[in-house]
Every structure is written in structure tokens, then in C-alpha cells.
């Protein structure tokens, strides 16, 4: 009950905060237009040069797949690594540890709260704009699409939080986790299907994307492909497996990190 109250309080406060500063939403929109918008123009041109089909994939499917990746990235769940690292480097961690709340759940809810409002607004309006410009792929009108999209989104969010929290917690041992963060982040970027949609992956790369936690955290980009109607149980199963593994890893690391902290007072 206490945990739910904490989550509710954090989410409400941060969503209100974001709503109060509409300029920040404008910046997030800028950012997604700069990355996703330019990329879509690029692919539209490339697909046109290839008579509309590359690797049996049409532009509509590739566009929605990339849009899902960039909309999910607006959530900024990856920033949990930096937030934990800053807490450790600044010493703020000892203040947070002394509070009667779970530090990890506080950080995770904080991250969700920070990205929730821009994610909802940008995803909603982005989806409407994209649908009106390029249309909707047939796979998005199947009956499994919405329920599986919700599931894959939820597990993807939990897995991303656990994956990036694991990187962040390493700051207790190596202090500056930025290089490690860059490597994990780029693995997620490549295998998640950001600049290159998963349908255009070579076979070996597709297998890495399928079975690694980096690709699994972005399975939301797979939902628009024709094979999703058959493959969704396997893919959600893989996602659940990695979520389970990383939740355990993050719990063990956190328990060890707690023992490592020595409060010197001041």
C-alpha cells in the first residue's frame, strides 16, 4: 500500500511539473522530429528508389516500426543509469538511503514520471500524424495487436529500467559508468531497430536482436510486422525471461551496493 502511494505521489507530481512547462514538451518534439522525422524522409526516398519494397517490407511497416522505437525513447527510461551515477558521485545516495522508502523503486518511478507526459502526448499526436500521412499497416488492425502491444510495452519498460539500473548501480564500484552506459545504449539502439528497422537486419543480426536482452527491451518495434501474429508468444516469452533475469541481477547488485555504502556524516 505504501509502495503504491509513493508511486502515485511521484507520478502525479512529475506529470504536473511537466505540464507546467510546455516548452520542455516542445523540445522533446523537436528532438523526435530531428531524429525520427529526418529518418522517415530518408527511408521514404530509399523505398521509392527500390519500387516500394525492401526485404519484403513496405515503407509503411518500416515507418511504424521506427516510430515505435523513437516514441518509446521519449520515455527516457535509460536516464536511470545517469541518475543513479549522479546520486553516487554527489553523495546524495546516503540521504536517499536514510529515507523510509526503497531507493530503487523511488528512482524507477521517478524515471517513469519524468517521461510519462511527453511520451503520451508525443505518441498520441505522432501516431495520428503518421497514420494520416503514410497510413496504417494491415497488421495493426488484427485482434492481437492492441493486447500484445500493451504487454510488450510493459515488459519492455520493466526490462529497460532493470537493464539500465544495473549499469547505474555499477557506479558503486567504478564511479564513472558513462563508457559502459554508451556501449549498452548503442547495443539497444542497433538491436532495437532504431536507424535500421529489424526487417532489414541480416539473419545473424536478427538472431542476436531476438535472443539478447538489448533487442528484447525494444520488441515493441516488432509488433507491426506480419510475422508478429504468429511470433508474439515466443517474443513475449523471451522478454519475460530477460525481465526476470535482470530484476534478479539488479536486486543482487543493489543488496551488495547497500553494504558498500559508508555514511561519513558531516
Amino acid at each position: 500500500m505504501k509502495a503504491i502511494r509513493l508511486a502515485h505521489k511521484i507520478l502525479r507530481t512529475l506529470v504536473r511539473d511537466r505540464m507546467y512547462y510546455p516548452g520542455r514538451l516542445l523540445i522533446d518534439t523537436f528532438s523526435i522530429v530531428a531524429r525520427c522525422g529526418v529518418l522517415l524522409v530518408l527511408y521514404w526516398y530509399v523505398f521509392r528508389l527500390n519500387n516500394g519494397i525492401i526485404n519484403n517490407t513496405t515503407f509503411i511497416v518500416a515507418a511504424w516500426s521506427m516510430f515505435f522505437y523513437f516514441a518509446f525513447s521519449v520515455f527516457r527510461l535509460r536516464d536511470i543509469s545517469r541518475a543513479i551515477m549522479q546520486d553516487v558521485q554527489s553523495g546524495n545516495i546516503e540521504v536517499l538511503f536514510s529515507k523510509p522508502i526503497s531507493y530503487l523503486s523511488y528512482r524507477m518511478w521517478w524515471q517513469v514520471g519524468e517521461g510519462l507526459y511527453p511520451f503520451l502526448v508525443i505518441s498520441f499526436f505522432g501516431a495520428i500524424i503518421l497514420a494520416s500521412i503514410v497510413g496504417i499497416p494491415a497488421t495493426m488492425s488484427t485482434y492481437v495487436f492492441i493486447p500484445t502491444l500493451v504487454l510488450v510495452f510493459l515488459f519492455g519498460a520493466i526490462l529497460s529500467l532493470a537493464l539500465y539500473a544495473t549499469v547505474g548501480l555499477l557506479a558503486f564500484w567504478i564511479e564513472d559508468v558513462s563508457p559502459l552506459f554508451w556501449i549498452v545504449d548503442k547495443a539497444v539502439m542497433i538491436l532495437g531497430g532504431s536507424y535500421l528497422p529489424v526487417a532489414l537486419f541480416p539473419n545473424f543480426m536478427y538472431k542476436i536482436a531476438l535472443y539478447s536482452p538489448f533487442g528484447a527491451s525494444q520488441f515493441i518495434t516488432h509488433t507491426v510486422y506480419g510475422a508478429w501474429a504468429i511470433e508474439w508468444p515466443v517474443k513475449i516469452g523471451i522478454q519475460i525471461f530477460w525481465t526476470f533475469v535482470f530484476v534478479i541481477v539488479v536486486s543482487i547488485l543493489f543488496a551488495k551496493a547497500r553494504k558498500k555504502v559508508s555514511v561519513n556524516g558531516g
Partner: protein
Amino acid sequence: MMKELRFALYATKKNIQGSAELRTSFLTNIAGMAINNTAFIIIWVFFVKSVGVVNGWTSADIIGLLGFGTLSFGVVFSAAAGIRKLADYVANGRFDHFMLSPKNLLVRIATSSFNASGVGDIIFGIACLTTYALLIHASIYQVLLIVLLIAISTIMFLSIAVAIYSVSFLFTDANPVTSGLFELFFTPSIFHGGAFHGVTRVIFTFIVPSLVVGALPVEIVRNISLEKLLLVSVLSFVWFFVSLKLFSMGVKKYESSNFMTFGG
């Protein structure tokens, strides 16, 4: 001018020495950034493999593009990393200290910080451009062009960075604005150059000059195009003077936060 350049070199040397004190962090930052950049090569090379050659752009050209982009990024944001902190300096009142310095204000701010990961970008950029020169069997003219274009694209990158971060004077907390604008400029500069055509090519050359940093230099080297060389040179110098003007206009607009602090 020479005096300011000497000061900039001295400040950079001291910044590197200070940064290298934390040896492990310094080295892991450099190596981490170089590995991080490899991701873009993987993506675009697989893109070319799947999609084929677009407007004459091969995998080698992508390597050249990333070479120019990361090298100019690395030079500017390692030696002149202070530019990126301008929004913080304005917001927390530290800008007052710089204004009191007898040195050139922009040089003093730019060299106030050093970013070790930028060295990783420089190493990566040099490796890419060397590979590019080998892959295209570059002639001596093309090698000289590459060297000249590194200087031009770095001037362009520096100019745009100064112009973007000068926006810091207009907002109370300009960090989100400057990062959004910077992303709008930098992201297309490491995109596949062959995909920019027609209106997008005009926009990303003259309005948001992202292509001047990477795509146009690659096309100049590949086709030995003197018209394009003239174009990027003129654009770089125009942007350089525009950015200095924007910075001085911003400084005139600056109002001290009057923080009662000492030193720092």
C-alpha cells in the same frame, strides 16, 4: 589574435593534464566513446547492404562521413567543452567570473572545460578518415582535400555550437532548448548523405547546415568538386562570423544573477 590562441592552447594543455590525473576514468572514457561510435558504422554499413547504393553513396563514403562528423565533434567538444556548459554558467551566475577575466570572453569560456570522451571521437574520426582514404585509393589531391576539409568542417561545427549555445542568454534554464537545437543540427550530420535530395538537401545545407559537416566534404573528396569546396568554405566563414555576432549580442543581453559567491 596570437596571444589568444596561445592562451587557448595553454588552457587546453592544463585541462588535459587535470583530466588525465584520473587515469582510469580518462582512458575508459576515450575507449568507451570510440566503441560507442562504432555503432553508427555498423548501422549504416548494414543499411547499405540491405538497401544498396543510394545516390552513389557506398559503405566507404559512410565511413568518411562518420570520420568528418566525429572528428569535428571531438575537436570542438574536447578542447572547447566549455561551450556546452554556457547554459549552466548563465543559469548559476558563474558567467560573471568569465566577464571579469581580461582574456577574450569566448576563448575563456570555451577552454574552461575539457571532455576526455572527445579524444575518443578524435581517435575514431582519424581512424575512419584513414580507412576512407585507403578504401577509395585516395590520390595526393584527395588526401590534401581531406586535411583541408577537416579544418573547414571543424570551423563550421564550432560556429554552429557557438550559435546554438548563445541561445542560453535568452532563457532562464536554456539546457533543454540548447540540447534540442543541437540534436536538430547534429543528428542529420551523421545520417546517410545519399538520402538528402531536393528540398531536404537545401534545408540541411543552408538553413540547418548539417550536411556541411560531413556529407558535402565526402562528396567533395569523392568527386573532387571545387564548386562544392567553395560553397562549404563560404558557408563556414559566414556561419563563423554570424555565430560571433550572435554570441556578442547574447552577452549584451546578459543580466548578472548576482549570486553572492566567491571563487569557483
